């Protein structure tokens, strides 16, 4: 493969121009830098340059106790904190062999689907804004605000929730929480109709997205794409259905798949997922089991406040967990779940101590970003913008 040009390098031919898009650019969604070689308005070559949001989270994990890693995971893919929480917790729970009570599992599914809606709303808003429909952006953020309020109710935080803990949830959901979720879930399908009214049938939107940034199924697989980016190319893979975790097998949902492989197909997949997700939230509300939200594992799960203050044993466990963490049996585990962006995987290696030996995240955005060159070369600059939006990358997820 030919060497890609650096931003400072001279273009290959006299007729082309090297355009540096980002890291400060209105529509590269954070700090993505794209080095474009353009001929007029046509993109000849495209190379994504990443690393501007490198936080060193993977390395930091090695210096933390297992339970202290949870807040770090929020900050990886900051649009779906709970999905990250869940994936990490599931991985460690697998190593520990913990049994999670059903209520915690259902809550996890419900919160995960709300997180998916939250993430997709940000995607839809910014994608529409990139294409020029600014109003959709604010409509989406209006509903996102409601979801963030729900997050705040359960976890005290709007974005960096850290609500899932190893062994269950941090807290019981507060009184009145389920009613609020119900209210939101009843209203939300109407809001999705509203977004679709502005976009789905709009001739300009279709002109901008149909047949644009095509990704063939073969390329999608070869480049490791996952999630709606893959399903938009006609490959029917969804880990929630194909490798169920955290009780997803109890839920009924469809996996939207489109065969066109263009921006519009990926758009339709995600919008349909919004509807499927809200359906799953409804199912979770209807079938929410009773019981504890934490596993019965005193050496791993922090005791309740009240128990800690009244029982000697609980106080000792609390002290031990906080000061020395808990040892996790030696071994390694890979846990993959379906994040809003695709296959999110946590590979956790334990050497038997209280701190992980290695935590590696398989970030869906990282693999999805690889497809961008394939999608955009030969297209116009405006299509690059549409394509970036359609693969929905989060830079925190890529750089870690």
């Amino acid at each position, binding site marked *: 493969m030919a060497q890609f040009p650096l931003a400072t390098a001279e273009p290959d031919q006299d007729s082309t*121009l090297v*355009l*540096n898009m980002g890291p400060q*650019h*209105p*529509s590269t969604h954070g700090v993505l830098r794209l080095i474009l070689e353009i001929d007029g*308005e046509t993109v000849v070559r495209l190379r994504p340059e990443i690393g501007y949001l490198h936080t060193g989270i993977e390395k930091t994990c090695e210096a933390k106790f297992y339970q202290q890693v949870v807040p770090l995971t929020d900050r990886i893919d900051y649009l779906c904190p709970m999905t990250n929480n869940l994936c990490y917790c599931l991985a460690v729970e697998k190593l520990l062999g913990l049994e999670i009570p059903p209520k915690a599992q259902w809550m996890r599914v419900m919160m995960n689907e709300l997180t998916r809606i939250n993430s997709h709303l940000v995607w839809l808003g910014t994608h*529409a*804004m*990139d*294409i*020029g*429909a*600014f*109003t959709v952006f*604010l*409509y989406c953020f*209006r509903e996102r605000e409601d979801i963030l309020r729900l997050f705040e109710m359960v976890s005290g935080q709007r974005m960096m929730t850290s609500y899932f803990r190893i062994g269950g949830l941090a807290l019981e959901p507060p009184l009145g929480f389920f009613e609020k979720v119900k209210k939101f879930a009843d209203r939300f399908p109407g809001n999705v109709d509203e977004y679709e009214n*502005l*976009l789905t049938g*709009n001739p*300009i*939107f279709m*002109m*901008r997205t149909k047949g644009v940034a095509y990704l063939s199924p073969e390329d999608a697989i070869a480049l490791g794409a996952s999630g709606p980016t893959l399903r938009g190319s006609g490959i029917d893979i969804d880990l929630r259905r194909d490798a169920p975790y955290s009780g997803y097998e109890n839920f009924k949902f469809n996996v939207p798949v489109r065969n066109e492989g263009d921006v519009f197909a990926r758009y339709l997949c995600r919008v349909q997922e919004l509807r499927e997700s809200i359906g799953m939230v409804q199912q979770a509300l209807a079938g929410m089991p009773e019981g504890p939200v934490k596993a019965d594992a005193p050496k791993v799960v922090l005791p309740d406040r009240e128990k800690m203050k009244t029982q000697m044993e609980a106080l000792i466990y609390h002290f031990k967990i906080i000061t020395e963490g808990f040892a996790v049996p030696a071994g390694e585990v890979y846990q993959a779940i379906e994040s809003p962006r695709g296959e999110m995987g946590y590979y956790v290696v334990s050497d038997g101590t209280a701190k992980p030996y290695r935590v590696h995240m398989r970030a869906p955005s990282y693999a999805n970003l690889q497809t961008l060159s394939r999608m955009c070369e030969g297209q*116009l*600059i*405006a*299509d*690059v*913008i549409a394509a970036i939006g359609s693969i929905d990358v989060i830079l925190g997820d890529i750089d870690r």
Partner: protein
Amino acid sequence: MSITTFVIISLIKSLAVIFVMMTAAAYSVWLERKVSAHIQNRWGPTKVGPFGLLQPLADGVKFIFKEDLVEANVYKPLYIAAPIIAMMFALTSIAVIPFGNWVEVGPWGTYLQVTDLNIGLLVILGSTSMGVYGVALAGWSSNSKYSLLGGLRASAQMISYEVSLGLALVGVLIMAGSLSVRDIVNAQRHLHWNIFFQPVGFVVYLISAYAETNRAPFDLPEAESELVAGYHTEYSSMKFAMFFVAEYCNMVTVACLATLMFFGGWLGPVGGPPIVQALLPVIWFCLKVFFFMFLYVWVRWTLPRFRYDQLMAFGWKILLPLALANIVVTALIVAWRG
């Protein structure tokens, strides 16, 4: 009329028109912010004055106090000239636009128009086309890639849509038989508004006008999600403000033109005491212009943006043939009816 009276009246009219134009431009920014806010479940400006009505003043003061950055690599003469050109031609075209009919103040009487040229329409079209120089030169002299792309897009777009804009008006001209804006309006008396006779011409004009003023869904020269800010990426402070005001002035101009050409200008029900009779036409005119301004804002905050090639194809393959067909049909009918 003596030469002194003529000069004084002309000066007063010019100053008044420039003042009105600038105020209109400033308040269309306010209108835009307010309407877009309400479309999007927001409040828009509320802090400065009642309903945020003094916001345009605050914006202007802010622009004046901003640092006027000039990039080291720009070609200075043109870099400075570009916003002036844009602004100048945006203001020129208003000179031939009549706001109302004959008014009398004491012994003096005048048309509410700076000057009534018999080729008024050509002046408007000419000066709006000259405006593209401001944009193209800004893009080129900034010496920035985004500005260059924006400037290129702007020149191509404005020149292409200029054609269909002009041709869309030819139908009206054939019917009125004059290039003077005043005559065209007077030909629309008794609700014989051209919109009823020239619906196709009107639609083509309206769409071309959006493109001509770089408004969404045709705001490609400054498509912020692609080209950052397009041709004015490297401009700051008052230089940027001049482009900004020029854009809104152009909007007002094309809205005025739409009103005059298709909506009967200042014509409307008139009656009552003399002072009301004198003022009512102006009010009708302003209301009609306001309608078009509102339409601009409404469309901008509803529709996504075209892609560059789609825009050009739309202009040349759809609008232009439509405008031409409209001319042929109009000409045939006018000739047939004698």
